[in-house]
């Protein structure tokens, strides 16, 4: 099997993290894990964005994944990180499959607003529900891997490695999906939906499938964030966290399955550095960088790589 550049790059990233991880300080590993969790959500949003759809409620599935992971810990004492991610993905995908019948009929601003409404419903449910921890949220058990509970020193590394491993796998699968005939429908849907229908493809079905994939990815991301932070709260479903995911997706662009992770890492860096330097202006920095990207790089940061590649070829 011959690997293309994206696949090679993804595998290289996994190897680099596996080899370099033990030398990274704990905070860096934590940031990496959170970036990967958010990158997974953005990866799903990117699929939808390729079809011209912007979900302003992806936090719904992020939060569902997190509460699913926390829930199995509470109910059954399960804290295996892979089981958590799987549960998060399954729960999120199930709800996305249900809502998808409705949402797949919506486009443009109305797709965004309906998904926003759905995520705010979940927020409203959790905030007023004592059993779900209300606004305080609930704590999540420390992660285990295949039944082993790593020591404090190696836990962060193990979690980060598991996160990157799953993310690389997800990115490889999404990369493959984008090159299937159905995956390639997305840009066509964005360009002209009616022509896609004339070709005999079902736009609604394609969007439904992408929506479920995106939700499953967000569910994994949520479960990861839950286990990495050790705590979950309803703010995970609030519109501002959906906004964060959109920020990452737009920043990165839709050029490649690696792009969302790059976006998430950059977001994490801006967040951490700007917050450190001046806690009252980090949102300003975020807002300005989003503006600059929208105005000057409508295809996102990833287009910088593409332009260089194109120039080389010429």
């Amino acid at each position, binding site marked *: 099997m011959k690997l293309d550049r994206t696949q090679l790059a993804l595998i290289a990233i996994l190897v680099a993290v596996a080899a370099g991880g033990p030398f990274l300080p704990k905070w860096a590993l934590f940031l990496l894990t959170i970036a990967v969790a958010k990158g997974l959500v953005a990866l799903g949003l990117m699929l939808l964005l390729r079809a011209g759809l912007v979900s302003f409620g992806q936090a719904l599935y992020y939060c569902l994944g997190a509460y699913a992971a926390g829930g199995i810990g509470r109910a059954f004492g399960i804290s295996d990180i892979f089981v958590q991610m799987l549960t998060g993905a399954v729960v999120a995908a199930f709800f996305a499959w249900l809502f998808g019948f409705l949402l797949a009929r919506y486009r443009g601003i109305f797709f965004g607003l309906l998904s926003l409404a759905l995520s705010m419903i979940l927020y409203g449910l959790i905030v007023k529900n004592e059993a779900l921890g209300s606004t305080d949220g609930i704590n999540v058990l420390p992660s285990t891997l295949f039944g082993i509970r790593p020591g404090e020193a190696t836990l962060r590394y193990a979690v980060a490695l598991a996160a990157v491993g799953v993310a690389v796998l997800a990115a490889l699968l999404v990369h493959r999906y984008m090159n299937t005939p159905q995956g390639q429908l997305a840009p066509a849907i964005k360009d002209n939906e009616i022509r896609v229908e004339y070709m005999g493809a079902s736009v609604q079905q394609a969007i439904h499938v992408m929506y479920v994939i995106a939700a499953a990815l967000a569910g994994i991301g949520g479960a990861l964030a839950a286990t990495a932070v050790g705590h979950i709260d309803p703010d995970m479903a609030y519109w501002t966290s959906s906004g964060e995911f959109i920020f990452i997706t737009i920043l990165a662009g839709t050029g490649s399955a690696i792009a969302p992770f790059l976006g998430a890492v950059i977001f994490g860096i801006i967040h951490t550095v700007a917050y450190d330097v001046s806690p*009252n202006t980090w949102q300003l920095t975020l807002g300005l960088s989003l503006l600059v990207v929208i105005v000057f790089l409508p295809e996102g940061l990833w287009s910088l790589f593409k332009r260089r590649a194109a120039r080389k070829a010429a």
Partner: protein
Amino acid sequence: MEHIAAVLVDGIIYAAWLFVAAVGMTLIYGVMKIVNITHGSFYALGAYAGASMAGAWLARGYPPMLSYAALLAAGVVVALVVAPLIERGLLRFMYAKDEVVILLITYALFLVLEDVIKLVWGVDPYFIAEPYGLLGSFEVGSLSYPTYNLILVGLALVSGAGLAWMLNRTRTGKLLRAVIHDPQVSSAMGVNVDRFYLVTFTFGSMLAALGGAFTAPTVSVVPGLGVEVVVLSFAVVVIGGLGSLPGAALGALIVGLVRSLSIHYLPQVELFVIYFVMALVLAVRPRGLFSLAEARKI
């Protein structure tokens, strides 16, 4: 019986607040097709400006009854300064872009303004409770409500009726409706579309700022004040129909009453129920309750 009266009064007061906070958003969408997240920033700006202006007014020992004028002036001034800056400086170059892209731009502006507010006013809360208590209270049955709440109801009625009159009864309103239907043709007929956009954006933002300014005495003014307003305004205008003035009124009433009903009878679902209604309306009538059939594109 009394319980029902309480539900109604609470509902109407909340609806009035929602209407003032949200009507500018529907106006801006109706004319400019911008789903404006920055709206929440203007609400927060109005609240901060109102709190500091009324606070300064009272601190100097000027007549407290006129602090309401200070609140009004604060909302008007802050919108007159900031809104044209944003519309002329940035938004007008973006009108050619897709609706969703413009929404993202207003989101970026929202983030920027959140921090600008912190830079100007700091992160400590502001309290100006005096105007709230000044007017005494009125009674409904055995329950008493601060009369201040009636100011918000009045503001909602005046802004709603004023907008309706302007749109339907004046020359400007007729021109504005022409701009809404077709900016290009209006422009070709000699209507200054740019100016309509500038005025609409400023006026819509001013309504949000006024909502914030007149809410300031009832709450502690803290960073992040506008965040909730964004999503509540979305709910209101989406229920009524984006861009529809009667729709915004209906949406505010529905959300106001639904919320006050749930607070009185089933407080666990207070937040849930607002967004549930929003999702329900979107599911059944995606363009809201007051919407015209949309001509199919392409």
